[in-house]
């Protein structure tokens, strides 16, 4: 039976009318218009749906929206003002280092990388690879993604 719940996303509180079995990913995309978060496998394997919940990376395709009540959710739309010249260093680095091709994995990848840098501001190349191993990309072969994350770490540090 559908319920009205409150979700706090990117600093804003929203009321949504949802079925209890809807995933957070689905609610973000279809109820809140935050389509930056992508649904790709729905089995928690590819990471295209990664968002931050209370600062921690979470695969939102496996996370019931009901579970997200009372928590701080951040999506790619909330990582910066998303205006030119005001992007998060990770977003800038992904652009500058050609780490974006088709772009479908990109929002999830950037969010996961943000979680990494928030926890570990100076990761090694190996640590970046281990942290991001749950975010699959079919286009880039990861090399430039890793480069971008390390460059952003330098900039933030």
């Amino acid at each position, binding site marked *: 039976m559908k319920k009205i719940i409150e979700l706090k996303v990117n600093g804003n509180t929203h009321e949504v009318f949802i079925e209890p079995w809807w995933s957070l990913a689905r609610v973000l995309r279809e109820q809140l218009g935050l389509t930056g978060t992508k649904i790709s496998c729905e*089995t928690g394997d590819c990471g295209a749906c990664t968002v931050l919940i209370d600062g921690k990376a979470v695969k939102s395709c496996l996370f019931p929206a009901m579970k997200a009540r009372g928590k701080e959710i951040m999506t790619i739309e909330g990582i910066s003002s998303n205006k030119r010249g005001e*992007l998060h260093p990770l977003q800038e680095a992904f652009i500058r280092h050609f780490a974006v091709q088709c772009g479908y994995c990109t929002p999830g990848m950037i969010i996961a990388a943000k979680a990494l840098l928030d926890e570990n501001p100076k990761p090694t190349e190996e640590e970046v690879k281990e942290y991001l191993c749950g975010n699959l990309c*079919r286009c880039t072969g990861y090399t430039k993604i890793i480069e971008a994350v390390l460059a952003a770490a330098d900039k933030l540090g």
Partner: protein
Amino acid sequence: MAELSVVGKSVINVDAFEKVTGKAKYASEEGIGIPGMLYGKVLYSPYAHAKILSIDTSKASRIKGIRAALTGKDTPEHRTGWMVDDRHILCHETVRFVGDAVAVVAADSIEAAEEALELIEVEYEELPALFDAEEAMKPDCPVRLHADLPKYNRPLYPYLGKDLPGPNVHTHHKIRKGNVEQGFKEADFIIENRFQNDRIIHCQLEPFNAVCYPENDGSITVWTSGRLFMTQGPICRAFGLPPGKLRVRTGYLGGMFGIQGRPERFAVLVALKTGKAIKMVYTREECFIDGLNRLPKIIYLKDGVKKDGTLVAREMKVIVNCGAYTDHGPITIRNGAFHASQYRLPNYKWDAYGVYTNEPCVGPLRGFGSAEALWATEQQMDITAEKLGMDPLEFRLKNTVDEGEIDVRGQRVHSIGAKECLKKVAEWIELDKPSRPPEGNIRFGKGIALGNKYTLADTASAAVVKVHQDGTVEVFHGGDECGQGLNTVLTQIIAEDFKVSLDKIKVVWGDTARVPYDFGTASSRSTLYIGNAVRLAGEDAKGQIFQIAARILRTNPGNLETADGTVSVKDSPERRLDFSDLFLSAVKEARGTVKMASCLEEGGEIIGKATFWGHPSDEDPETGQGEKLAMSYDYGVQGVEVAVDMETGLVEVLRFCSAFDTGKTINPKMCEAQLEGGAGMGIGSALYEGFVFNNKGVLLNPNFHDYRICSTLQVPSGEKIKSMTVEIPHREGPFGAKGVGETAMCPTAPAIANAIYNATGVRLTRLPMTPERILKALKEKPE
């Protein structure tokens, strides 16, 4: 040539800002939250081969919210397809693979559609199924999967339907050059081997999806995650719609690698029947089950070689398990023959067969037939080199064709950087030095492979360039932006030709109502074909600009040049006009509202238009020879160093080097990105990826945990990966450029196989080279 200022530079990808902010629109974003939208689901056959005795959708139709429950009887009577018309939109009488579409439901909510799907009652009579292509192709095979095959219409390449050796063989492609029997007699050594590759699939991150809107004028608009015109054509044929009645739109594609998009045909079916809009999104499992696979080939390869290392003859028999319907099988089989163009083969015989089986359908996957063939031939080169006691690099250098030679299909070789690439890669991985010594159970080895990928000659692109009053240049093209950076390359080309800054250029794509025809992004053709069409359209537009400006400046059009939205006389730059001066509003007689008019005084607008097509020759159906079958070839080499755990069969790729010839590298960093991406897909195809079926034809790993694509941990990065390009200009390419997107995956698997052999003495002839298969081979190796 004049010094280039934008082409050849690593210009930032024009899409990147949208993509890093999450604003980029894919077909997945279309139609979300629209009131009245229907949601569709497909019912698939659970059997590999069965007769449909009855379908009852009455219970399904009673579910609250169901608006349509359609079966074969609701679809057109005629069969349709790409090269062979052999398939109905929904099965009529027979299902031919686990995943064949039997019914479609559409409802107000996805939940109602799922409920309804469960209530459709289908009675099947199971029939014997074929999974083995060699069995299925036999002339006396008792099971016939398409009894009407001889009557099927063949709209494309009909000659591929001749000389079929068995009732389940639908395609036979031949190449004959010289006399292989004579060649084998002249040879000092004969090397014969059998190779095989399992099914793999693209795994684009964006799941296949489509949205279909019926329009008020009786036409329909379809959004697809697939290609633009290559969606329009087949859908029109399938439903008997005139192209003017079907508008196709795309956003950014979340990956493509050959083919995307499957649900459009079902969305269109529902929209036509109900008159309502419908959104269909495949689950990841459905993408696996109903997607096209890379060609699973069995290759019998026989080479004849002289003691001095000269290849004299090659015979290849290729048996392709094409699955239940031809789909893109025939063209991919035929095109796979292009791989042979890299070596001098005076006597050559190729027979490639497409065989119906009860497995999923096949089509192009980054390499379009060539990658699968190179798996065999590039290992055979190493095997032969060892037999001769020759260095594998020297053996390849000796036999690689040179500019101007005629290749195995009768084409003159042009723009080939294969030898340079071989040397560069061999140098970087230090192929002449042995790999490191064993460490405990780990053995190290190195290997290289040379690959190539053709771009088809029988395609066409058109482009339109519109120049605006404010100096903006708008480019309209019918290609697909799937992450390869096409829009950026076209922006660079226009920036170079018009000498305008990048922010003055706008690229319009993804709408058949707004852009001219294009075969689309495939065959590594976008830079070459669309780049050329755009240049030519730009020249046409400039011509119009110069005509108008010449009158105003009182000179000849040939004396004029343009930069930064101005037109000036060469050598007299003070005699200059802005683009706005060319328009009606600037004319002396402009009065009243005419002073606001943004059209031209005559002719309406500055619109340049052009076609670039390949002027292909015929292909001789008996010999496969033709003067111009491919527009261009891209050649490339990959070299790897691997570590093999002798106790577990696990392989780690330690270092990876690519060198590819691009003709002209329009954007070096983006090109590098393609090569690195190819490494990732190639390593996946070599070591991890493969479909696993049970003996009932059910796919057991239709998901991302049991079908393993590379993660960050499987691909070398940083200092351990090196991507290089070599520029040997192609006379027909824009600025000499040709495509590189697919070649990046072509030599990977054989290079890794060669490295594993170098490390362990064990040669795997079947893809993928999983740990279990490697360990088994290690244990079976004679001491």
